[in-house]
């Protein structure tokens, strides 16, 4: 928190900060300060202190202190020098026996993404890739241009507002549908979860493949998901299995609910739609 740029008054207000020790070892600091407009702002910071101990071989530590020699003798740069050491762009290493298909899929997605990026900018007058106001045909084609004041037949994300007279063109994110137009409320719940089972109390080593292998015996499976932590990709211990028919899902539930799997007792119920 910087107090140097603020006035003495702000500093005084700043002193009222409260520090709370949370039971999980983190600290919450709530402080108040004044912003440029003189409004009081509440700042909440959550701090976690992590102590990292690194053990280093003494020989390695000694080598870290060696002074430079040879062509680097006169180099005084601290750390890696840009002239010899460059951090390159990221490369991907997809491990797996199907790495070729995975790499192809990735490349396809990348090209798709770039196509999408191109189409986001579209002139309403000439359909070119620039802003309408910067259109070179603005004066020649004008407002009678083919693209203007007509509802676009293609569902293109670029053309959000068709209304004349500059009505608000903003569509809030939850109103946008996948293909860019305005979503109708019933369209928002696109998935039918009637054949989906929710599997809880899973061992964290269980992944989609293992889950598919044990549920696959009861019928064909449309979709398997294990819910994971976004950062660590570690399983959160539950997942979803979608069957082709309700009947198959029922038999799977009958057979597997309450059974032990990898040291834990599986709990299986129907996937509940989100409220």
């Amino acid at each position, binding site marked *: 928190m910087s107090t140097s740029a603020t006035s003495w008054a702000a500093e005084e207000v700043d002193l009222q900060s409260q520090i709370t020790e949370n039971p999980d070892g983190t600290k919450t600091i709530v402080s108040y300060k004044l912003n440029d407009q003189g409004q009081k702002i509440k700042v909440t910071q959550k701090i976690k202190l992590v102590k990292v101990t690194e053990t280093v*071989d003494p*020989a*390695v530590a000694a*080598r*870290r202190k*060696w002074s*430079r*020699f*040879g*062509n*680097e*003798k006169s*180099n005084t740069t601290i*750390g*890696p*020098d840009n*002239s*010899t*050491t*460059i*951090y*390159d*762009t*990221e*490369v*991907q*290493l*997809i*491990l*797996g*026996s199907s*790495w070729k298909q995975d*790499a192809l899929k990735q490349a396809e997605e990348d090209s798709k993404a770039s196509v999408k990026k191109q189409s986001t900018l579209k002139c309403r007058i000439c359909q070119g890739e620039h802003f309408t106001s910067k259109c070179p045909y603005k004066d020649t084609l004008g407002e009678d241009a083919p693209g203007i004041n007509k509802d676009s037949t293609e569902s293109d994300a670029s053309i959000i507002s068709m209304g004349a007279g500059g009505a608000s063109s903003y569509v809030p994110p939850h109103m946008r549908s996948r293909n860019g137009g305005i979503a109708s409320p019933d369209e928002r719940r696109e998935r039918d979860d009637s054949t989906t089972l929710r599997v809880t109390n899973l*061992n964290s*080593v*269980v*992944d989609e*493949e*293992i889950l598919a*292998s*044990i549920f696959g015996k009861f019928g064909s499976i449309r979709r398997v998901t294990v819910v994971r932590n976004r950062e660590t*990709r570690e399983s959160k211990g539950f997942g979803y299995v979608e069957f082709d028919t309700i009947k198959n899902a029922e038999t799977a539930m009958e057979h*597997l609910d309450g*059974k*032990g*799997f*990898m*040291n834990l007792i599986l709990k299986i119920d129907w996937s509940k739609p989100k409220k």
Partner: protein
Amino acid sequence: MMRPIMLKGHGRPLTQVKFNREGDILISVAKDSEASVWYSSNGERLGTLNGHSGAIWSLDISPETDLVVTGSADFTARLWKTMTGECIHKWDQDAPVKRVEFSPDGSKILIVTEQAMGQKGKIFVYDIDYTKNEQSTTPILEIVNEDSSAEKFSVAGWSYGGFYIIAGHASGKISKYDAKTGELLNSVQGHEQLITDVQFASDRSYFITSSKDQTANMYSVDTFDQLKHYSADVPLNTACITPVKEFVILGGGQDARNVTTTAASEGKFEARFYHKIFEEEIGRVKGHFGPLNYVAIHPKGLCFASGGEDGFVRLHHFHKSYFDFLYDVEKTALATQHSTIDA
């Protein structure tokens, strides 16, 4: 995803890169005449070893990282102090030095000389005295290739305990010599073409050979049986065995003379990861725009370095996904081990 560090220390194609025993130091040599010493953690260049007057074909680092030996096309092998980069000894030879390696205990070095200039291809073994700079110039062992030049030595290395010397020949033959007497103990026609590299597993009880015939093989030192066979679609220049994970990394690419006529995307200039046991290719790492001349793996398996014909060393630190990777059968084995649901 990995963010490789590009090391630009050389103006010519790389010939060899090696980690020291702890893996904190990486040394690279190339067809220019200076070796570069790097810190592997951040890619900082510590210094260069200046003195050779020709391409450096090979290097090795002593177990304690106090000495470095290099072998060059200027007909010399040199010994350097790693800490200061000072050349403390020079072995003059009658032909270019193609390969050098310290024995596992660091007490000896082997030097492979090229069969050229009317000289026969030879492997010399010298004692190393750590207490003084000046070293003995009389070899304690000399293995001479008495056959035609097609059979000349291309690479050589020490087995576990320094008991045997494993040599690869230009014809694709692999031989095992007694490191005390120089007696030929075993020989096998492992490849059809030039053997480009031989690298050992961390316990030196088995090794992998790579060849221009687009294959790499794994052999046991004791029985000399072929344990594994990996096939690729390009001539291979190098192969290494990863510790920690059961992989091997192969490197190669089209021959240098064909490179200018090939697009980088088609040149197959990638480091190839194969599963050591299942012999199946499981992934590739792109980045070089010339063939890979050498790949080396960190002794703890944390990162790998590749030296390319393009003059770059690329140092890749592995991410968690690399260490987490399990083969399908390994996964199912793990699952059935804990499972109470019978199949």
